[in-house]
């Protein structure tokens, strides 16, 4: 960040906001590494499959959420439509998988 000696209110506001954002990104990044280690640990530790699969799926879902919201800024203004489309896509995909698992595969 370039030094700005004439910083006014707005500048300070944005600086604080950016600092906050940076903090979130670092925390998320650390969490993502921890999640990845946990995932590897679960597989290496040879736990029961019925336990490992759901946990892995949940961890994966959380990671995707982190990716969207903290690194791809989906929470920011102007991202409502991409968010809506992503959720619609997830809805269509879940519907498909749900139907195929209940009707065809079981």
């Amino acid at each position, binding site marked *: 960040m370039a030094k700005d000696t004439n910083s006014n209110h707005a500048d300070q506001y944005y600086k604080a906001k950016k600092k906050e954002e940076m903090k979130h990104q670092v925390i998320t990044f650390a969490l993502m590494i921890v999640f990845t280690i946990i995932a590897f640990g679960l597989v290496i530790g040879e736990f029961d499959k019925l336990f490992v699969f759901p946990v892995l799926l949940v961890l994966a879902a959380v990671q995707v959420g982190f990716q969207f919201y903290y690194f791809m800024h989906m929470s920011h203004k102007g991202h409502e439509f991409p968010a809506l489309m992503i959720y619609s*896509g997830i809805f269509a995909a879940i519907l498909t998988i749900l139907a195929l698992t209940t009707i065809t595969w079981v």
Partner: protein
Amino acid sequence: MSTATVGKRSFGAVVWDYLTTVDHKKIAILYLVAGGFFFLLGGLEAMLIRLQLMAPDSELIGAQFYNELFTMHGTTMIFLAAMPLLFALMNAIMPLQIGARDVAFPFINALGFWLFLFGGLLLNCSWFLGGAPDAGWTAYAPLSVISPGHGVDFYALGLQISGFGTLMGGINFIVTIITMRAPGMTYMRMPLFTWSTFVASILILFAFPALTVGLFLLTFDRLFGANFFVPDMGGNEIIWEHLFWIFGHPEVYILILPAFGVFSEVFSTFSKKRLFGYSSMVFATVLIAFLGFMVWAHHMFTVGMGPIANSIFAIATMAIAVPTGIKIFNWLLTMWGGSIRMTTAMLYAVSFIPTFTLGGITGVMLASAAADYQYHDSYFVVAHFHYVIVGGVVFGILGGLTYWWPLMFGKMLNEKLGKWTFWLFFTGFHLTFFIQHFLGLMGMPRRYWKFLEGQGLETGNLISTVGAFLMAIATFILLYNVIITTVKGKKSPADPWDGRTLEWSLPNPTPFYNFKQLPLVRGLDPLWVEKTQGNGKMIPAEPLDDIHMPNNSFLPFTISLGLFIAAFGFMYRVDAGFPAYVAIGVGLAITLGSMLIRSVKDDLGYHIHKEDLEKEGAGE
């Protein structure tokens, strides 16, 4: 470079211009010509089907050829005629309706068209290379996997390539509508045709991937020895049906929603009233799209999914009748008390209501899972989907083309010939398909090569064939109308129908940059607002300034051509050996090379300068 400054040009220059164009108005004309060609081809196939079924136990054409005919009739009409004709209207009209100078990605728009065209041509090459696909337009496994020859390979690869194009077109329209609306054009001020383009594009975005996946699995099963649909090897052929209909049912809404949009514009203009219940129309459009994703299994009631799955899908299907009903009543109430002009476009719109309602009612009948066991794969189904697709989509396309022809070509189609077309087509259509409901209930199965004497099916089939001839005559009159208008027609006024929406505020012919200054939109039906509250002209929202335009490019053509060549290589890999691998190599090299050129070469477009725009005069 600019088309406005050039007068008479050589034939070669015009062809080159169309091969490289990225202008949405010209791409619309390309879609119209290509879609129109495939429409005639699909119609020819339909006529042969009806000729074969004119008399009992007919030997006019062989059984195998009949299988190929009905397969290609369905595939051609849905993928290569109805979709591109709607894309033609969307491309031509939607950017003008929202006050944009082009679509968001002009290059991708051209690429979408050429991919569609080469996919369609590939599919039809099959006629000359050992026989067309013969497994029905639905290509159900296991028949599509074991079908001998290369017919179904052409189906899988041809639809794959044209599907890429459609997907790109859909994404392009979504981005255009979200990002390029003129100042003041809020979502709830968008004309219904733009809304339905938007929603249909979202459906394309979510539905086409299912087809892409399905076609890839089919391609791998047929060409590379995979076993996705082979139960002996642990596969499952029902998965094809699911994937196909997860795409296939939203597909019918992709077709019908834009037609709904066309009719909404036509009703409003020719009743001289704003659309009744605008917000409920928008809501109903979105609701149809939403529900359209959870009904696909109603095509598979007899597969044996079990009573619970059947009931869920039956109820979801019937629920769609509600938003559709909202639309029907809104259209009726738009006409109510309006000052109605029965132009050709309005005739299509008015006759669409009872026709489509009939198709909707048989739809609810078919949705009752228990009763469907009786209707399934009979002519009742054939009658149903022709009522919704011809009575809805084809009427919509013909009405929309008549309505927007002056905007697309600067000349008005002959109304008298247009009305002849309409009445012959309308009569012929009902003659052909109404009787098929009863043929189906009497037990005549769909897709059979012949029927036998003495089962009471003779008269009905004869009537049906007579009706098909009337539709053919109507199509010829339409063609004659188009030719005579192009050759002899006079230039039409800029706003021939006393229009309400933004596209009619443009001069005739539409400048290649569309809007000299982006217009300020002050309400629903922006032009009508200015006609009643202003001086009838749009208020500019910006000062006159340089306009940034994209350069033409030949790359979309070569990218698509490369895939076309490579597809032949993949198909004949086993029987042709080395030459096929050469085709794969050359084809992919052309495609990937063109993509590489596009990626590394900066193409920043050009500017039309303010001074040149001023020189051309005020325009409006």
